[in-house]
């Protein structure tokens, strides 16, 4: 499978390394040449020696996307640090380049939800964090249930935690 990842930040670079290690063909596009170093974290050989590809360019430039190989991508991942950039380039990948699977990282839950409702495959890390926090807080609440919380007489040792 050929995976094109736009935005080789912490998320994009980790995903790129994992996919390459699993035997997929991986090409990364990032506007910052320094991002290349992030791809090689923990590797004993260079990214290219491992078979990876890296292109420096702006995500919105058709030439850069083409150089990264978008035209024959099986999967396109938009993981730059800009929600709007990700949402726009995901639509380019889908509508202009006809990539079969397009996955978009959107940090803002509201925007992620609306675009998901329109058929976009969005991943919202903020939503995941909110859900996890809610679960933890609810779990804590159920542990204190029956004692009606701190004011209701939880002992001080517990309340300070």
């Amino acid at each position, binding site marked *: 499978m050929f995976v094109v990842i736009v935005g080789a930040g912490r998320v994009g670079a980790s995903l790129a390394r994992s996919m390459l290690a699993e035997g997929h063909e991986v090409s990364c596009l990032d506007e910052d040449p320094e991002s290349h170093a992030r791809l090689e974290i923990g590797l004993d050989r260079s990214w290219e020696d491992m078979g990876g590809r890296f292109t420096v360019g702006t995500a*919105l*430039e*058709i030439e850069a996307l083409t150089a990264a190989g978008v035209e024959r991508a099986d999967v396109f991942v938009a993981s730059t640090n*800009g*929600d*709007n*950039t990700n*949402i*726009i380039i995901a*639509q*380019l990948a889908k*509508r*202009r380049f006809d990539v079969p699977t397009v996955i978009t990282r959107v940090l*803002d839950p*509201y*925007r992620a939800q*609306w675009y998901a409702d*329109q058929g976009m495959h969005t991943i919202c890390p903020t939503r995941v964090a909110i859900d996890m926090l809610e679960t933890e807080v609810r779990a804590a609440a159920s542990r204190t249930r029956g004692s009606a919380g701190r004011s209701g007489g939880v002992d001080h040792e517990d309340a300070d935690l």
Partner: protein
Amino acid sequence: MAEKIYIIIVGAGKVGWNLARELLEKGNEVTLIENDRERYLTVEQELEHNIQYGDASELWVLERAGISRAGMVIAVTGDDEDNMLICQVAKEKYRVERIIARVNNPRNREHFDLLGIRPSVSATDLILRLIEHEVPEYGLVHLLDLPEQHLEIIELLLPADSRAAGQRVSDLQMPDGSLLISVLRDNTGFVPDADTVLKPGDEILAVLDPRVEEDLTAYFGPDRTASE
């Protein structure tokens, strides 16, 4: 603008600020949205309650500004992705009737078109258009573009070696879907008749389907069979 509508402008740079001022002076209700705190405070001294602070690509910021009753949204930030996204949600989520987007990098214009964001305005393109008009060697000037209606009006300078120079209008074989509407000669415009003979240096105005533009310019242009 006879009809007064509620207009939301995103981006309080020079373009947005001046637009807001002009539209307010014409009696419209306007809200400007700016996400840079310092810029917001500067503009707020003049526009007061007509500017709000926030990132308009966060939907609640648009909602707080009352987007559901807006008749027009104008996105003129310095960031093309933001302008595209804001106009897309304005049009498709909030069903705003009219949108206008600013294109910062003219190479991004095709993306605006792909996402159905029209009209979009690029200062670079406008200046290029003016250069074409001021420097007639460029040959072709677009006077009016109505891409949705498949219609445009162009101005074209007949070069000395134009195949059409010296021909009577009735003998012209212009491509189907194009029509000669007037001729500018010695700073005077006139509507040609069948007996008018075209001369090198004439500027002709034609109405046409944009799809035959290339054929038309090739027909009136110099004999360039060797070049390109």
